């Protein structure tokens, strides 16, 4: 089996860059400064339950909104002429080519109390509204940044669905809505699950978006972890413990998602 030799470098890579760091996080989470085993830090994570709940909640809302927006977009894209699909796909991807921080800064100026949107409201005698530093702004930031990650996997499964299947469904008595429910959705399940994964995972662990658009009052898990390593609260053991818990939560959610996917193709 020649293949074995070729896969060796990848195995080494996986061990060094994935397995070892994971074990280190587990080690940090379960020891104190003197290297003694303790579950104190894992216990401490409980204090931050409200932050976990908010993070999961906001990430879920953002994922749901992404799905609702991306589904029709991906479908329309997949039904266009082949050569127009390329152009449209590029337009969808275009914001991704701009730096993540810059994109989020742009939203800060748009949403600020003296920002462009409030300025426009002012012209018609409304506002100013409090737009920035709200959980809504955080969700907006997540949707804006992660939407392409939902569109792409959906598009790539939908593009493979042949038009003749819609004709067959319609021939067998399906209205457009029934065709959607009985044919299009079941066939795009792999795209839905991988899209959800690709949006939900970064959304639940983001810290930049909540920092810039959420102000101090919308702390997410990502911020919490960052503070343990880089901030004033310096406590890597607690940080590692929080990361570990977050990983377990994501793992559980993804396993549940897997149950809906007939082919078990979900990216973990």
């Amino acid at each position, binding site marked *: 089996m020649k293949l074995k030799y070729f896969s060796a470098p990848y195995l080494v890579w996986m061990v060094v860059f994935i397995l070892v760091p994971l074990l280190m996080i587990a080690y940090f989470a379960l020891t104190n400064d003197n290297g003694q085993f303790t579950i104190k830090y894992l216990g401490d994570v409980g204090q931050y339950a409200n932050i976990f709940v908010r993070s999961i909640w906001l990430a879920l809302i953002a994922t749901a909104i992404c799905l609702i927006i991306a589904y029709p977009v991906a479908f329309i894209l997949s039904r266009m002429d082949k050569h127009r699909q390329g152009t449209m796909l590029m337009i969808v991807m275009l914001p991704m080519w701009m730096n993540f921080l810059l994109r989020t800064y742009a939203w800060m100026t748009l949403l600020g109390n003296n920002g462009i949107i409030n300025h426009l409201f002012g012209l018609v005698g409304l506002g100013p509204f409090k737009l920035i530093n709200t959980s809504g702004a955080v969700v907006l930031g997540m949707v804006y940044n992660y939407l392409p990650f939902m569109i792409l996997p959906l598009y790539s499964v939908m593009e493979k669905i042949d038009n003749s299947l819609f004709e067959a*469904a319609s021939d067998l008595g399906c209205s457009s809505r029934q065709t959607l429910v009985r044919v299009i959705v079941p066939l795009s399940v792999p795209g839905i699950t991988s899209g959800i994964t690709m949006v939900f995972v970064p959304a639940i662990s983001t810290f930049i978006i909540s920092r810039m658009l959420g102000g101090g009052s919308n702390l997410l898990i990502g911020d919490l972890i960052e503070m343990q390593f880089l901030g004033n609260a310096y406590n890597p053991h607690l940080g590692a413990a929080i990361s570990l818990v977050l990983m377990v939560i994501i793992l559980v959610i993804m396993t549940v998602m897997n149950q809906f996917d007939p082919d078990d193709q979900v990216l973990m």
Partner: protein
Amino acid sequence: MENIVSLKNIILEFEDSERILKNISLDIKDKEFVTFLGPSGCGKTTTLRIIAGFLEPTSGDVFFDGQRINGVPPHKRNVNTVFQRYALFPHLNVYENIAFGLRVKKVPEKEIVKRVGEMLELVNLMGFEKRTVNRLSGGQQQRVAIARALVNHPKVLLLDEPLGALDLKLRKEMQIELRRIQQELELTFVYVTHDQEEALTMSDSIVVMKDGIIQQIGSPTDIYNEPVNAFVADFIGESNIVNGCMPKDCVVEFTGRRFECVDRGFSPNETVDVVIRPEDVKVIPADKAQLTGIVESVVFKGVHYEMIVDGVDHKWVIHSTKAEPVGAMIGMTFDPFDIHIMKKTEEE
């Protein structure tokens, strides 16, 4: 019998392409087995798609059961289709593919089990219920496609080359089965094929098409025995087609000789196509014949021999139960009623 489907002056043009259907008019009677026969690209699938509702004609009317149904979407037409390229649902197994139409119509589960079971038996796919369709052979997929459409007992079933992927033996069996079902359930079948033998054996009536124009509509016997032009004659079975002219009624001249025939009503010396079936050419001793030729090849075809005989200006195809040696000079003759005279088609 009443007309179940009628097409009236159907013209179809795709965007930026030439005319595909050129004034198709056709009545399909209830409980009839109608076959569209014609070469590839002549518009058979397109005509079926217009009946099913996937295509709107550029002009012309479609009637179903006496009612004009232009613009009625496919799911509201009491018509089901067996697609040329199957179009099975890849996310469903064989059983669920067949049950699809019944589930959409909210048929009770008990009835679904019964009807799908019948269909599986019919298409000989028992034991395949749980298979996903992309793990089936082409022929098996085709049979699922037939079952999926037929299970709905539509008034009209459109079948687009439904047996194309099957081997000869299975195809013959399915031909008999489909014909039986059609008669037993009293359904109307509109069947597309380019296999003329299939068309002749199965149909009540055959529609021969070429380049988006109906050439002839008639029963298999009519079409075979009385083809209206050389194209139909050639397409339905093999034919010898030679140029000739009619000096007067009941006399035709071809390959430089005169023959007695039974056709009349042509203008004097009108040029015509003369069509003679290979089995109607009689082999006689060369010294007794006005038409002679040299045997070029002999091929055994199971029931008969097929001989190619080089006459002076035409190579004759002859079907005979007796073979002549290659290189022999033989004579040929025809009974007057076996000589079919046809008007030249204008375009040629």
